[in-house]
Every structure is written in structure tokens, then in C-alpha cells.
């Protein structure tokens, strides 16, 4: 799914005594279908906001957003709901599994919204769970899982309905480095196998290395301060990590890596 943003700005309605805060200013972007793009920037730079706008969770204050040829910024609430339901998978920093549903039900949720036949649901959920290595945890509730397992369940939920677009907001932000890597490998391999467009926000250069390219975000602008436009920066120029392919191949064996910045809470 192709993503285009044209001169998008976003401001949060003023709360407290302050006036409205402009968080994103005049952003234009074009992410081609099938890309694995990484939004990288410091905490508070506006990545999540941008991701929310792309993901039709929020509407921009000004500017236009297109997913393929649909201008999402003009759609009404129910259209946006349908779009999110059918076309987008979400992966969050805090996993956001529904605590009252077990793993199977959490993953099945997008399918049940789409009224998928029961037998189909069963096989597709099983398949999704197997692909994230959680085949044997289907009946567990989220509070019985570790962080890494929760995130894997969340990934299964994000991909189970085969959305053309997957958004991931700091998917490793709440995990230790080992689990983090496992998740990143998983996302990478999903990108390969499902051919979905993936946009991932992160503040970690190491994580950013997993994408095809990096879009820098700072102070609500893309491509660095002062620059009106943006450019794709090849991911590997930023950080020399083992090639995603090799990581995927050796996913079971721990790869040695240089010291990483400890993941911080946002």
C-alpha cells in the first residue's frame, strides 16, 4: 500500500492554559507500496503522531493523506473504521492486548470484526500464532505472558487478516535487547513473506537498521531541522548491523552485537 502525505500539519487541541501545540509541521512523504520504512527520531519528536495520522487513528489539522488512492484525511469516522479494520495492522509499544481475551481471541479479533467464517478463523489464527512461535500459548491470557510473548501475540494480531499496511510504534521500546531483536526479526520476515508495507517508528538506530530506509523525524519535521523536504536514507548507512537476512537465518542463535542504548520508556 502506497502512503502519501502532502503538507500535513498536526496540532493537539490546547489543554490546560496553553494554546494548541503544533506537533507536526508541513510534512510531505511518499512511501512506496511494499517498502519497510522507519521513522526515526528522538522521543517527543512526533513519530507516534505521524504514525497515528498514517494509520487513520487521528486526522491532520491541515494537509492531505493518501493510502493508495484514497484520501483518508477526508473520510468520515465509519469509513476510517472500515479502513483500519481491513487494511491496517497495528503493533504498539505497550502491546495493547485486550486483557479480558486470551491469546487466541486477541489474534482472532480482527477476523471476527470482518465476519470471517469460524473454521477459517481457527486455521488462520493457528497459522499466525505458529508464525510468531506462540502456537502452544493460545489459551493463555495476556497477564500470563512475558513481554516478548505479548508483543509476538500482538504481531500475530496485526498480520492475521493480511493487511496491506502494518504500522509499528516503538515495537521494541518495552523489551530487553534480546526480545527486541527477536521482534525486529519477526517484523522483517513478515515484511518479506507478506509483502506488506511496513512503517515502524523508533528512536533506536539499531532497530532502524532493520528497515529498507530511514526517515528522520525531529521537532515535527522530517529529514532534519530546517529541511522542508525529506529524503530516504539507506538504513545501513546509519548503523552497520548484520544484514536482516542473516539475522533471520540465525534467529535461533544469539548474535553478538555491540553495546546498545538501553531501551527507554517513552
Amino acid at each position, binding site marked *: 500500500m502506497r502512503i502519501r502525505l502532502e503538507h500535513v500539519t498536526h496540532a493537539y487541541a490546547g489543554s490546560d*492554559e496553553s494554546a494548541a501545540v503544533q506537533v507536526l509541521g508541513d510534512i510531505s512523504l511518499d512511501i512506496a507500496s511494499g517498502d519497510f520504512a522507519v521513522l526515526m527520531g528522538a522521543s517527543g519528536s512526533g513519530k507516534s503522531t505521524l504514525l497515528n495520522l498514517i494509520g487513520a487513528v487521528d486526522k491532520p489539522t491541515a494537509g492531505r493523506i493518501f493510502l493508495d488512492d484514497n484520501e483518508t484525511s477526508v473520510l468520515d*469516522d465509519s469509513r476510517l*473504521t472500515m479502513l483500519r479494520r481491513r487494511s491496517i495492522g497495528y503493533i504498539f509499544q*505497550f502491546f495493547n492486548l485486550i486483557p*479480558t481475551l486470551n491469546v487466541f481471541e486477541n489474534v482472532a479479533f480482527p477476523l471476527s470484526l470482518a465476519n470471517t467464517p469460524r473454521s477459517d478463523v481457527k486455521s488462520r489464527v493457528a497459522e499466525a500464532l505458529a508464525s510468531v512461535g506462540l502456537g502452544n500459548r493460545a489459551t493463555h491470557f495476556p497477564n500470563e505472558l512475558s513481554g516478548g510473548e505479548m508483543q509476538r501475540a500482538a504481531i500475530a494480531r496485526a498480520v492475521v487478516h493480511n493487511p496491506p499496511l502494518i504500522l509499528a510504534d516503538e515495537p521494541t521500546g518495552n523489551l530487553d535487547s534480546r526480545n527486541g531483536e527477536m521482534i525486529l526479526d519477526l517484523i522483517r520476515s513478515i515484511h518479506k513473506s507478506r509483502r506488506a508495507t511496513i512503517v515502524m517508528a523508533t528512536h533506536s538506530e539499531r532497530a532502524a537498521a532493520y528497515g529498507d530506509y530511514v526517515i528522520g523525524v525531529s521537532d515535527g519535521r522530517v529529514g532534519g531541522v530546517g529541511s522542508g523536504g525529506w529524503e530516504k536514507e539507506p538504513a545501513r548507512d546509519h548503523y552497520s548491523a548484520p544484514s536482516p537476512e542473516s539475522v533471520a537465518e540465525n534467529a535461533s542463535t544469539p548474535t553478538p552485537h555491540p553495546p546498545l542504548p538501553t531501551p527507554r520508556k517513552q
Partner: protein
Amino acid sequence: MILRALVLRPILREPLRTTLTILGIAVGVAVVVAIALSNQSALRAFSESVDAVAGRANYQIVSDVAFSEDVLRALQPFWPRGVRFAPVIDAEGIVEPSLQPIRLLGVDLLSDLHFRDYRYASVVTSGKESAATYLSLFGNDSVVVPATFAHDHGLHLGSPLILNIHGVRRTMIVRGLLEARGPATAFNGAIVIADIAVVQAAFGLEGKLTRIDLIVNDESLIPSIQRIVPPSARLERPSRRNERVEKMLRAFRVNLFALAGVALLVGMFLVYNTVLISILRRGKDVGVLKTLGTSATQVFAAFLIEGLVFGAVGSVAGIALGRGLAWVILRLIGRTINALYINSTPEAIELTPGIVAAGIAVGTILSLLSAIQPSIEAAQLRPSLLLSGTVWRRQPRRQDQTQASSPHRTQILVAIVCFVIAVLLSRLPAWNGIAVAGYVAVLFVVAGFSALAALIVTGASRLLRAPYRAAFGIVGELASASIPASLRRTSIASAALSLAIGMMVAVALMVGSFRETVRVWVDQTVSSDLWLRPAKGLSNADSALFPNAISADLARIPFIAAFDRARGRGVLYDDDRVLLASGDFAVAARFGDLPMIAPSKQSEALLNAIARNGVVVSESFSLKYNKGVGDDIALTTIHGRRSFPITGVYRDYSNDRGVVAMDRSLFIRSFDDDAISTVVIYLKPGIDRDTARRSLEATLGPKYHAFAVTNGEIRGEVMKIFDQTFLITYALLAVAIVVAVLGVINTLAALILERKRELALLRVLGMTVAQVRRMLVLESSVLGLTSTAAGLAMGYVLSWILIYVINKQSFGWTIAFHTPVRLIVTSLAVTFVASLVAGLVPSRLARRIDLAMAMKAE
């Protein structure tokens, strides 16, 4: 799946919240169902008795006074045209010496089988049922009683039975037993049947009838039958009696239902609160679901269904509970209805489909209604806000500070509008004798106070902050600060509790004022020295009577200065049953002390009444029919309709239907009834009351079965009946309080679960479990104090409406305002303690918080 995620699993996972909410609704529904059930049972008992006695008759010629049996001859020509008629004497009386009230039914035992369904269980002792044995039923002392009655009183065929009817005492012989069917079931079997000729001869009613039952198949004959009806009687359908009773009890029932409404209203707050809390608590999950593509409608439906589930389950539980409660209420109102309105012994409680449906509908619909607003709110929330978790931290502050002035201004505006509407409504007159506008005004006052709830809670906790810090240190300060932090939840809980307390205070004020007014009135009215009565209790005053012959005996007693012979009976006025009372006005004018409204001197009113053959009426009568001094009222006497001038209006709290009182001689002339229900005795100066009492009972006791009671005892008895009447009121209010306390427990429990992290943090920082618990109990004390204060204020406003609008319009009583300080202080103390307990229960949850877990998750 959405349902399972947002509603079903949480309902199962949070048993405390679920149970409390369901219990709250159940209690509300139970009260309504119970009142409906017991009302139905009491009324049905009465109407079944009427039907059983009326039998197959579809018309009756009835009279409040006996009429001549000559009319039977006039009815003869209708016989060939298919009209069947049966003469009846239907009289109230008592059985001696047990003094149990009974109904004596005199019928023509031969022809009456057309009308009523009797079956003789046994007649006289022997098995041979010859004509002679049946003839014994017509013996001049023969009566037939239901087998159950005989069993209860240890009677057999041949047993003597002493009856006192209209003051005439006769010993009758039980000559037959009836199976429990037809009239034998009326009045719970407290009925004695005899041949009409026997009754006429035995009780001085020769040539008299009280009723003729008719079977008229040809409606076109009615006008010609109407023409032969004696002037003192009327032709009507038997069901008219039931309708009249129903009408008479209407205001009483409306009042009960209004009280039940309070319990329901409080229950509604509870559902509203529960659904709101579950939305607030699952806000993040709602956000996730919406991000994943759940539509607003689906979210709305899910929470609405939560309300529905609570409503439906609560209603079903409520109906079961209500059945039990009805049993209790029946004991309570049964007594009231008997004391004030009709003699009927309520029977079994029957859960009709109508009542079940109504109960379920009330509970479910109200729950749905109260779930709508929070569900809409959940549906409209933006997923991004929910996800970032900012909404709950920011929005309350937004309401509280930023736009501090504007929401507060709207709240105050709404409250003012509500109060103004309430004031305007309370000036409207009653509709059909029911204070509809008054009740609606109450709703508006409640709405006004509810609109202010948030303001009151913040204001109060701000006020309490300094004293709480001083008294309880940091724990106290945290407690007072946390209440406004979760303003929405706490203000609803507080509104519900204030409402319950407000209603309680209002009713306490109303009943207290009423009680004080009645006490003053009784002290003033019951000024005589002794009362002579044919039975002990007040409640069967109409069934037990003295014969007029007692007058001569009384006149011979040297220590009596004067005596006033009272007799009352129900008569129809304007198709309503009012009380017609009589007394010796000349004596009352000299010795009595009637609280007058107009003219101010009682002697003027009473002597005028004697001189002009007039009547004095009670305030309730005067208000209800808009009649005052100088107006005439028409009553049906034995001579037909007669008009009587009103010469005075007096205050009376014994009867809300209205009382018309006339001098005894006029009463006897008009109604041919010289029996006496009570003799009010004034002693000569210097006579000791107790000596007089003993001497009176010694001389008159054996002859007339007379009891002498002192004015103190009478006063005590009046107050006892009064308190009994309002027992149900208190019971219902207690229920409302229970529901409200449940709401507070519910809210606090939710607050604790939600603040797990905060509480865990406090624990990590070094607070002990005991301190955390103390903090939580202090929080509920803030809530309790606030609600008590608000409730007290609301109570005063509501009591004003109750006293000056609703009571005045429903019953025609003028009540002087009086604060029953002790009652109010105790009940407030009780509710405050209850709110503390409400904090204590959920504070146990604090112990269960797993620190590591609570700190780990977001």
C-alpha cells in the same frame, strides 16, 4: 468478541462490582414489585370478598342506611321479566368475648341459592338429612359459619356463638357449617350467615334491609327498576364498590410508589455509575479495539448491553426478592389499610405475569436508559486519545481548571433552572386528587442537586483538605485530594448517596412534622377524662358498638359531669366514601376542645349546627370538595337526599377522606341509627380518674362489655397507629440508603482497582497496608460527609414540597414544620457510618495489590 472483551469477561472477572450493581437494581425492582404485589393482594382480598358476597348479582340496590323491605313488593312485577332478586342484610359486628370483627350476612336461605354458591359441609349432628334438619337452620337463633371459622374458634354444630351487631348482643347457635367456597371465603372466612328473618328479629332490624342483590339480564329494565329504588338507596353494579375502594386508596398507593421510585432512582444512579466506571476503566481497551477497526456503534452497543445485562439479571433477582418483601410489606400496610380505610385481610401473594413483566420492564428499561449516556460517550472517544492514555489524566483537569468557569457556570445554570421549574410546579394544583406536579417538582429538585454534585464534591474536598491534613497527616491530605481527582466517578456516587440521604431527611422531616402536629392535635382534642368503648383496639371501632340503652345507665352515674356519644359511619358524598360522624354537640361545645379553622370559636360552630340542623366538616373535606362555612352539602338520609349547611371547619388528622360531623339527634333522625361507638366522658371536678374508671368498668362492663380508657391511653394508641402507618415509609427509605451505600462501595472498589499502580507506588515508597487502608476509608469519609451535607440541604427543600404541596394535595392536611432533631441526627449518623463501612469493604482490596505486577504493567 467485542462483547466478550468489554462486557462479559469483565462482568465475571469483577464479581464484587457485578454483585453490587445487580444487587442495587434488584433491591430497587424488588421494592416496586413488592409494593405492586402487596397492593394487589390487599385490594384483591377486598374485591374478592365483595365478589364472593355479591355472588352472581350484576346489580345491587344498596344504601348506607337500612331501608324498608317494602321495595321487595315493588320488585315482584319484574320477576316474570326475568329479574331475580335477593334481600340481604350485610352488617359488621364482633364476636364476643374474643372481640374479633365479623361480617353478618342475612339472606333468604331458600331463594339465595340463585345468587350465591353455598355448600353445606354438615348440618346439625346426625347424618340423616331430613327436611327437619334443614328447617333447624331457620330457628330463631340459628347461624351458619364457614367450617374454617368454626375450626379456628373451636365451634361445633350446636355451639353457642355470641354476636354483637350494632350494639345488640345475642347468643346464637351454630346449626350448619359451610364448605370453603362462595361467600364462605369472603373476609377470610370471618363471616356468619343466617336467615334474613332471623337477623331482622335478633338484632332489631325488623322490616329492614341493607341491600337487595339483583340479576338483571335485560338492561332495558334498569330505568324502570331505578324508579322504585327508595330515596335512601341507590342502584349500582357490585363492582362500583371496588372502584370506590380503589379510588380511596389511590393517593396512598401513589405515595408508596413514589417512595419506591426513590429506590429505583438510586438504582439508576448505580447502573449509570457502573457503566461509566467500566468505560473509564476499559478506556484503553476501547481505544485498542477502535484502532483495530471496531466501529463506534459496536462499542456503543457493547456498553449498552452491559447495562441491559445488569438490568435484566437485576430485575429477575429483584422480582424474587420483591416477593419476599411483599410479604413483609403486607404485614405493614395491611395494618394501615385496616386502620384507616377498609377491613380486609390480605391473602396470599400472587406473582401475576403482569407484575413480573412490569418488574422486568422497569428494571431493564431504567438500566438501559442510564447506560445510554456513558455508552455514547465511550463510542465517541477518539482512539488516539484513548491509546495515548492522556485523556483520563487530562480531561478531568480540563473540566476542573482550564475552563473552570464555564462548566461550573453551566452546572449552576442547570441547577437554577431546575429549581425555578420546581418552584413553579409546586404552585400547580393537584390533578385528579394526585399531586402530580408536586412529584415532578421533587424530580426537578433532585436533578438540580445532581447537577451541582461535581461542584459540591470539589468544594467540599477543598474545604476538608486542611482539617484532614491536621488530623490525619499526609494520609488525610492524600485522601481529600484524591476525591476530586476522579471527579466523575465520585460525584455520581456522591449524588446517589445525597439523593438517598436527601429523601431520608425529607421524609424524616415530613413524618416528624406530621407526628408533632398530630401529637399537638391529639393532646388538644382528646381532652376528656375517660373514653368508654365496646372494644379495646381503635381499629375495629366501627364493628363494635354500644346500644343506645347505655345512655340511661350513664345518666344515672353520679360522678359524670357530661358525656358525648360518638358514632360514625361511612356514607357516600359525591360518589366518594367519607366519614359521617356524630356526637352530642351541646356537650362538646361546653367541654370539648375542637381545633377550629373557621369560625375560631368551636361553641359558635357547634351551637349553630344544632340550631340550623347543620354540620361541621374536617379541613380535608373542606379542601377536597372546596366547601366552607356557609356552603351546603347534600347527603342521602333515610328520607332521601337532604341538604345540610356547613357551620364550621375543624382540623382533623384521623381521616384523609374527609369527615362530616353532625349532632347526635340530627344523626339519629337522618339515619335511624342510635348505636354508639364511643362515649367520651367528662368527670365532675375532684373525681379521681382511676377510681371512676374502675367503677365504670364494674357497673357497665358485664352489661355492655365496656372498657374505660384514659385520654393518655387514647393518645398513645393514636400515636401507635400513626407510627405503624409510617413504618413502611421508613422501611422503603432504608432500602434506598442500602442501595446508595452499595453504590459507594462499588465506586470506591472501582477507584481502588484503577489506582492499583498509584497505591502500589505509595506502598513501594513506604506506606504500610494499614496506612493505605486508612487513606481509603478517609476518602469514603470525605464522600460521606459531602453527601450528608448535600443530602441534608436537599432534604429540607424536599420536605417543604412534601409537606406543603404533596401531602396537602393528596390528603388535605395542614402540617406545621417541625424538625425531629434526634431522628435526623441518628439517621445521618447511621448513613455516615454506612459510608465509612463502604470504604472499609473495598479497602481490603488494597492488601491484595501485587506490588511488582502493578509497577510492571504500563
